């Protein structure tokens, strides 16, 4: 087609969870097709894992993704415990669950901020990152690091949650509820944000099934699936909480699902703190038998899957990892096609591969090879649309 324009986005960019390179094919304003290329951050972790001791691997898989730096080791230890058929001390399970939910809180706040950033609401960005800091402070107090907590260990956890830290966690939870209420009021009821996100980037239930999306992306499309409920690990079967599901499948639904999930996380953490028994936190496991194990964890972005096979030696002979974004990103092929370029930024961001890549975007006309837009122009375009809607609403 003569007027088809290709917009390369990427390849690698600052904030996202996994590196992708998007190629948007556009006609005029409309996106007609999209190509996704991944592999820019391939570090060979699966292979590296085969050369590491079982106890070193949590440290390695923690560094698959900085934002899910608890979900991967969690899935790995679940796989190892499935392999070795061991029961983990009760207290360790509670601690694991608390850390996992704290991570979900900080991850969802991070996404909320970035989503705001892309539609031109930098206030939302600054606010939600400001309120993310107390969560990181708590994680630092408990685990010793703001990210990469290093808590998981085959057969238990590395550090106990000290009695004196618990009031701090409770206070953080209590303080976060008014903040979430504010976000619910300010973000979800805002007419401009609604205009930018409602009915945009729709992923229907059928397409969600076809593309096997997971996590909040699936739950926003009406698929009530959550590993925490369907295949309980940690102590999720011992606490009261709900799976948040929305039917619409648009970006607004994804936003609502994430905001409401934060309330559930707070509920889970509070119950865990109450019910947490005293006792040992580690089994001090020495030997790993031969066999294979599977670990599934609901990471903030969806189901994270680890498979480990052991031959009875010190390190696995196969370690397979599937991260949630690997399933979610291809769904952009449906969600972004048919949208305008200015909606592409937020649509690609909605599955939470943290879409900051626009700053490296250039629009090139295929015929003339002439540069039309750079990355900031694309963000600018998205912001201009918000401004226009703001004008219409007030005018």
């Amino acid at each position: 087609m003569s007027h088809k324009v290709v917009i390369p986005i990427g390849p690698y960019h600052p904030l996202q969870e996994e590196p992708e390179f998007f190629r948007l094919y556009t006609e005029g304003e409309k996106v007609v097709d999209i190509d996704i290329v991944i592999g820019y951050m391939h570090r060979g972790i699966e292979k590296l894992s085969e050369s590491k001791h079982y106890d070193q691997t949590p440290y390695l898989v923690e560094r698959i993704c900085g934002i899910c730096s608890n979900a991967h080791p969690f899935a790995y230890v679940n796989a190892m415990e499935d392999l070795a058929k061991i029961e983990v001390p009760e207290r360790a399970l509670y601690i694991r669950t608390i850390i996992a939910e704290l991570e979900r809180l900080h991850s969802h706040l991070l996404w909320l901020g970035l989503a705001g950033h892309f539609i031109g609401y930098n206030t939302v960005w600054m606010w939600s990152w400001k309120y993310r800091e107390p969560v990181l402070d708590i994680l630092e107090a408990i685990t010793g690091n703001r990210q990469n907590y290093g808590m998981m260990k085959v057969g238990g956890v590395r550090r106990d949650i000290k009695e004196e830290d618990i009031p701090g966690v409770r206070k953080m939870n209590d303080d976060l509820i008014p903040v979430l209420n504010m976000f619910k009021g300010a973000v979800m009821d805002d007419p401009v944000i609604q205009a930018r996100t409602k009915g945009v980037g729709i992923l229907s239930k059928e397409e969600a099934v076809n593309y096997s999306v997971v996590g909040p992306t699936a739950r926003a499309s009406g698929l009530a699936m959550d590993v925490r409920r369907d295949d309980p690990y940690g102590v999720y079967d011992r606490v009261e909480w709900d799976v948040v599901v929305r039917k619409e499948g648009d970006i607004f639904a994804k936003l609502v699902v994430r905001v409401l999930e934060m309330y559930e996380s707070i509920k889970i953490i509070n119950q865990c703190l109450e019910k947490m028994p005293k006792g040992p936190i580690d089994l001090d496991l020495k030997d790993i038998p031969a066999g294979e194990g599977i670990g599934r964890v609901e990471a903030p972005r969806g189901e994270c899957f680890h498979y480990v096979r052991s031959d009875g030696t010190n390190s696995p002979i196969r370690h397979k990892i599937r991260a949630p974004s690997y399933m979610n990103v291809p769904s952009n092929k449906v969600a972004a096609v048919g949208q305008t370029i200015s909606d592409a930024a937020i649509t690609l961001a909605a599955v939470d591969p943290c879409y900051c890549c626009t700053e490296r975007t250039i629009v090139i006309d295929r015929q003339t090879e002439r540069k039309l837009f750079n990355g900031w122009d694309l963000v600018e375009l998205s912001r201009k649309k918000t401004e226009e809607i703001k004008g219409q609403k007030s005018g």
Partner: protein
Amino acid sequence: MNLKLKALTKSIWVFHAACSPCNNCDIEILDVLTPRYDVERFGIQLVGSVRHADVLLVTGVPNRKTAERLKALYAQAAKPCLVVAIGQCAGGGCMFTPSYNYIKPVDEIVPVAAYVPGCPPKPEAIIMGVVKLLKSLGK
């Protein structure tokens, strides 16, 4: 200090190149710009193009795909452009050195002016690294 460097130390603009990191360092870099630390007070700003940047922040272990791009990025930058290696990976490869996709450390691809160790370095550490770098330029 020559004029170019003197001008560089005022309100530095940074460009952030992620060379297959795990995103932690990248998030901490953004964190430095958000209200708790808010370095925009000092005129430090994240820019969208390396051509505008005074400082290039590099995170992660360069792999076969990103190493070339890092080289190209540095070639595009207006000189003097200072490179700061953020995090353990950029500093020396961390535990990824045995990987088949690892080529060479960042400082063998581009000249690095400062290293900020940590996995990930805390925002305070990143700020301190940049401040120390600027002070050393004054001498």
